[in-house]
């Protein structure tokens, strides 16, 4: 499987920071200053197409086709003449979207494994994976199902196209629900825009950029050689293995939370509030809680469009646990066409199923509270998560095995691990485990389990648009721009 990566317009690249983003903001606000509110929304749509086309013009055509097809099917699913027609339209849409994702993402994986099973051969197709396909197809599957259930659909092609392709969320989420964006785009086109959101957008974006470029990328540069050595079959020393496991745990945290912050910040800059996708997941006391804090919109999608349709809790506790397991397994496979992702998904599926079983059959353990209990639960949860990340990151199962077996080895480190790496990881761990997260600081996340920001403004008590905050924002942006002279791709862009 190949991916269009490297030369594209990642949020931390110069072409995005210096050319695309300023051009979008100038164009958007210029149109609004002239009262062309509808045109400003259309402008956002065109900018999103340009953003996607910069990665691949051919894939933009695919995206446009997907948007057009799902828009029509959504209308039929909602208002078709008969229930059978509506159901057929929905089924065609869901199957079509799944076929698309299967073709681009899983065909080689499925074909080569099937060939291995049947002792035949499979010639790899090496299809270039369209960026964000997992996200925009899932969003549209949810849309079709909702159209069928509610009988409502988006009447304006522009709003629908923007719901799918809005550039801050197009490539790596959050997976946006149609109900959250529809009123926002409609309001934007009518003139409503709270300009107070602009500085908060810039501040949150700057925090995300700093997370990505100052923490995630430097850690990645240090630990990538360890995973490469593991993939090459070299033995991994204990120090290197621990650095690889802890490092990747922190890298993916700051990479993904940085990306989510940047997406939310970008949305706010043009008056759109995107859902919360990331909420200090390493503070979780259980795996169940972890999945309510990590990639929240994916968890919600899997719950609403996989877990419930396959039965949910409707057939008793045993079937409920089975459905939870299957849902998480699908979640693992969603991340990539490789056995490492399936194993990662299976580990999480087993853990979350076990967690639910414990709640069911050992409620006292679940209710056990106090500092010692919380500390123990957090530590245990984090330990399982860290071990599972090794499978997620490793190039193959043997490579994951090499890193995991290295954790208990006594070999001499053959890969230089600088003190700066350990200091950076300690700092990053402190932020992830003990500090309030950026959305809490900005007031975007008010309630502990919230999945959306407050509807009416979100004026933070801590972070206000003062000259000092502007200076801090400038420093974070500067750091991001300085490091961006050699940009790195976001991990979740690969899915």
């Amino acid at each position, binding site marked *: 499987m190949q991916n269009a990566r490297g030369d594209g317009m990642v949020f931390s690249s*110069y072409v995005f920071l*210096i050319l695309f983003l300023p051009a979008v903001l100038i164009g958007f606000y210029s149109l609004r200053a002239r009262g062309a509110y509808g045109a400003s929304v259309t402008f956002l749509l065109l900018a999103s197409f340009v953003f996607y086309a910069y990665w691949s013009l051919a894939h933009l055509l695919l995206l446009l086709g997907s948007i057009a097809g799902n828009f029509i099917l959504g209308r039929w699913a909602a208002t078709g003449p008969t229930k059978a027609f509506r159901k057929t339209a929905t089924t065609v849409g869901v199957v079509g979207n799944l076929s698309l994702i299967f073709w681009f993402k899983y065909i080689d994986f499925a074909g080569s494994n099937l060939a291995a099973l049947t002792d035949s051969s499979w010639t790899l197709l090496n299809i270039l994976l369209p960026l964000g396909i997992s996200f925009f197809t899932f969003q549209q599957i949810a849309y079709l199902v909702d159209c069928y259930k509610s009988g409502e659909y988006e009447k304006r092609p522009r709003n629908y196209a923007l719901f799918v392709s809005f550039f801050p969320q197009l490539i790596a989420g959050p997976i946006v629900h149609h109900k959250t964006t529809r009123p926002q785009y409609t309001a934007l086109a009518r003139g409503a825009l709270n*300009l*107070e959101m*602009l*500085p908060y957008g*810039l501040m949150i974006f*700057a925090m995300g950029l700093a997370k990505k470029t100052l923490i995630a990328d430097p850690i990645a540069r240090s630990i990538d050689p360890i995973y490469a050595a593991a993939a090459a079959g070299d033995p991994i020393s204990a120090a290197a293995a621990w650095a690889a496991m802890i490092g990747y745990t922190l890298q993916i945290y700051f990479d993904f939370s940085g990306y989510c912050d940047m997406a939310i910040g970008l949305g706010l800059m043009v008056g759109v509030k995107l859902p919360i996708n990331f909420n200090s997941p390493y503070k979780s006391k259980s795996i169940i809680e972890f999945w309510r804090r990590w990639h929240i919109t994916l968890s919600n999608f899997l719950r609403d469009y996989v877990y419930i349709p396959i039965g949910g809790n409707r057939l008793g506790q045993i079937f409920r646990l089975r459905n939870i397991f299957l849902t998480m397994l699908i979640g693992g496979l969603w991340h990539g066409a490789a056995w490492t992702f399936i194993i990662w998904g299976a580990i999480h599926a087993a853990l979350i199923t076990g967690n639910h079983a414990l709640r069911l059959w050992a409620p006292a353990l679940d209710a056990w509270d106090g500092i010692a209990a919380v500390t123990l639960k957090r530590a245990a949860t984090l330990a399982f998560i860290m071990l599972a990340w090794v499978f997620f990151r490793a190039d193959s199962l043997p490579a994951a095995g090499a890193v995991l077996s290295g954790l208990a080895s006594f070999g001499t480190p053959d890969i230089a691990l*600088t003190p*700066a790496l350990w200091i950076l990881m300690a700092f990053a761990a402190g932020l992830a485990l003990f500090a309030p997260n950026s959305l809490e600081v900005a007031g975007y996340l008010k309630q502990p389990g919230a999945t959306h920001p407050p509807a009416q403004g979100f004026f933070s008590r801590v972070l*206000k*648009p*003062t*000259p*000092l*905050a*502007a*200076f801090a*924002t*400038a*420093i974070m*942006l*500067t750091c991001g*721009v*300085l*490091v*961006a*002279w*050699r940009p790195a791709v976001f991990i979740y862009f690969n899915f």
Partner: protein
Amino acid sequence: MKQLSPIAFVAASIIGLATLLSAAVLLPHDRYYRYQAHNSVTTRQADWIYERLHFDPTPVDVALLGTSRMLGGLSTWIVETEYCKATGRRIHVANLAIPYTGRNMHYVLAKEVLAAKSPVLVITELNEVETRRPHAAFIFLADARDVLSAPAFINLNYLSDLLRLPGRQAGLFVQTLLRTPAVRKEFDAEAYDGPDRDLTKEIALIDGETKSRDVTRTARHMEAVSAHREAGVSPLHLLPEPLHAFEYRFARHYLRKIENAAAENDANYAYIYLPAYKAPQPTADLTTELNITAPIIDLGGAITLDPAKWLDATHVNYAGAKLQSLRFAKKLAGNYPALGAPGDCPAD
């Protein structure tokens, strides 16, 4: 503290960003570390160039500036030996070629060698076609002032190089501060490849692999790769006639700068034509476009028709490099017989 209006906040952040980025350009660094940071090509040529010019006391009489055609196509040891045989004079030639085209890179290295070694003769590579593009690695090696003062017009990399400069400066500043360069903290005489590093027989790639150039291609293979190359060659002018004056403006700008720098340092200046397989000589139209008035040492001719001398369509193999080096030495001795000083010739 007083809150700013949304527009004032954004303006203050942008002004702060611009100020901090400008300040980053002024950050100092170790220039040896800068040359080590250049890893965008297949060889670690820039490290060696810096070591040759700044740590090796061997003088440079003849400085060669060019692309990969020159890098693996001329053996300085053969040139020095044959020149000495012909004239009785010992010279030191430095092959400062770096893969890929772009005249701004040649200027960077010309400036460096003129300042460090005061060569008597500077020779720049000339091909049958001229690139309109700047060198992709200019941002890695150029002094900050050269990046800032590069011509903005008809320079496809100007904006990109300008934007990357603060990041480069800050990165090198941190590397210098923490003493964490890409390869080595200090010059290591043991690791240094010596003044006559020869890449004509084999070339060490940046990933540690060694690639042999001592291979012979069949005539059929050479015909195929040559046809492929020919198909990709653009005409002399891609722009419409009213814009012809701008098409090679970038190359002219830097070639004049090299000539001027050589003149200011009392160095002679010449070009060397390094051909491609079955490629025609540089046309008068091209040399006119580039405003070339300095002498051209022509290494074209029969070699361009001999498939046994080529590695691929544009690079000679080991046999071709030996022949090319011999011919260059003879022409150098004929045109510049008084280089270097009388002395013992290098041992065969």
